[in-house]
């Protein structure tokens, strides 16, 4: 739009750059800091007088060596990946048919039930973890990653159903009608027609469920005590420590290694999540 003097326009642009720079630095700084700490020698890291922004001693791979060689880091990665994979499978198996049924096969009250399911997403782990800890103990799953495999889908399924309902709603009914006219049953049409078309929505559910598993803290902390059975979300902040002293170098490296892939994955599917959050809220 016109209407600004050249000075006004330059000033506006400068403000724009300043705002962006300020927030980008403020938000991304901790990760930049993780990078630096990961490669700084301990002598450098723990010397208060040194300028923390510079490598006063040459960078080192010691922390990485320590992390991979002498901690359970790799084990935690494995645990997380395993739990993630199984939870994703369970989530897909249960939420895809459910979302379809609630969209297509149930009419009015199906929509209501969908909203009700979504609302359970609002019940936080910090409310349920205490009774669940008992349930887990009773089932003999205490300290096992399978406790998490059991409980996590209760968090992933509600939101996934909500996401997929929005997605299925946008697929025209005629597609399935045509398939049924051609001889498929309703379920057959679902498997052969709807699911293949919905791949991007399903992928979104996969990413979302997996990142939720990696992000989770409360249940993992509550149900699992032994170090070797822990997930990365809990293992890193809790176990990379001797007594009261943190292994900051290795800790930061671990955070970085664990965060970045997840961040990249999540980022690529972000727009779909937003659609899930805002479905129906915006005209």
């Amino acid at each position, binding site marked *: 739009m016109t209407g600004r003097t050249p000075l006004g326009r330059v000033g506006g642009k400068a403000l724009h750059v300043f705002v962006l720079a300020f927030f980008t630095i403020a938000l991304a700084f901790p990760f930049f*800091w993780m990078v630096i700490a990961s490669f700084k020698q301990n002598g450098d*890291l723990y010397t208060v007088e040194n300028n923390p922004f510079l490598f006063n001693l040459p960078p080192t791979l010691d922390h990485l060596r320590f992390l991979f060689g002498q901690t359970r880091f790799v084990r935690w990665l494995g645990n997380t990946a395993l739990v993630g994979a199984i939870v994703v499978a369970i989530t897909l198996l249960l939420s895809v*048919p459910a979302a379809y049924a609630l969209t297509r096969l149930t009419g009015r009250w199906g929509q209501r039930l969908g909203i009700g399911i979504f609302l359970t997403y609002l019940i*936080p782990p910090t409310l349920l973890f205490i009774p669940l800890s008992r349930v887990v103990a009773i089932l003999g799953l205490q300290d096992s990653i399978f406790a998490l495999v059991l409980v996590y889908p209760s968090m992933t399924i509600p939101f996934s159903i909500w996401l997929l309902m929005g997605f299925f709603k946008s697929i025209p009914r005629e597609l399935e009608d045509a398939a049924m006219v051609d001889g498929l049953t309703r379920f057959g049409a679902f498997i052969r027609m709807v699911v293949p078309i919905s791949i991007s929505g399903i992928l979104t559910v996969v990413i979302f469920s997996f990142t939720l598993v990696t992000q989770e803290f409360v249940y993992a902390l509550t149900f699992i005590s032994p170090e070797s059975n822990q997930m990365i979300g809990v293992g*890193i902040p809790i176990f990379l420590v001797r007594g009261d002293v*943190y292994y900051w170098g290795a800790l930061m490296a671990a955070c970085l290694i664990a965060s970045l892939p997840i961040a990249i994955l999540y980022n690529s599917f972000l727009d779909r999540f937003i659609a899930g*959050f805002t479905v129906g809220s915006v005209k």
Partner: protein
Amino acid sequence: MTAVGRQRWLGPAMFLPSVLYIAVLIGVPFVLAILYAFSDARIGTTGIHLVGLENFRSILHSPSFHKAIRNSIVFTLSAQVIVIVCSNILSVALEKPFRGRGFIRFLILLPWVAPVSLGTIGWKWILDSIYSVFSWVLITAHMVKPYAAPMWLGEPHLAMASVVLVHCWRLIPFSTVIMLAGRSAIPKEIPEAAAIDGAGFWRTFFQIRIPIMAPILSVAVLFGIIFTFTDMTVVYILTAGGPFDSTQTLPSLAFATGIQGSDLAAGAAISLFLVPVLVAVAYLMLRVAHRAEVV
């Protein structure tokens, strides 16, 4: 239509597993939480007895509990206010395309997409009482004496500010992205019409954009409240509730009491105080969704 009618069992068959799963793993524990709150359940014992309002009486007398409630409310509200202001500013800055916007967006999103605990522990290093980079900057700028740097996580007020800071840091990306979606949903011609009608930047912002974005704003705010109010991870990792319970919140106190202190019943009772807020938020969300659908 008859073919579908004959398969009336298909629909329920497809969604019942999910509904059952949720009922068993959310519904049942929820009921149990209420039950425990009125019992004497502890870690290590198997039986439980009902004890009436005993747990509530004792926690209501506990100073930690009062601090926790106060903190939960204060942290949530202050974080939310800061987040709303910042995400509005940031979403305006990110709205128009520019070179490198995708990369900037990735960087800005990092606090939200990285696991909570890992981002928090990163902050713990930044706020360390001896090695904090903030301290180093202040000392080098001669604003504080060497070795006399602030105890970011050790002094009660600073610790509270730190917790709020980390929550804001996590939430701003989330809010900004939702705000961007809201802004882009405003038909382009409406702010243009406002400009022609004579409205300047601020009038357009407050009288036109915000009201139109109201439903989506509400969604962002409500989720933000939930995320902050029910979170225990940030507090647990950053300060473990200290110093002297000054950063304790309802969820973190529930954890400390119930799991670390083995008093499941008291822990459950504390966590039940989350419910009123959750119900209020759920109700408001339904209102927003309902109004949006009618529109």
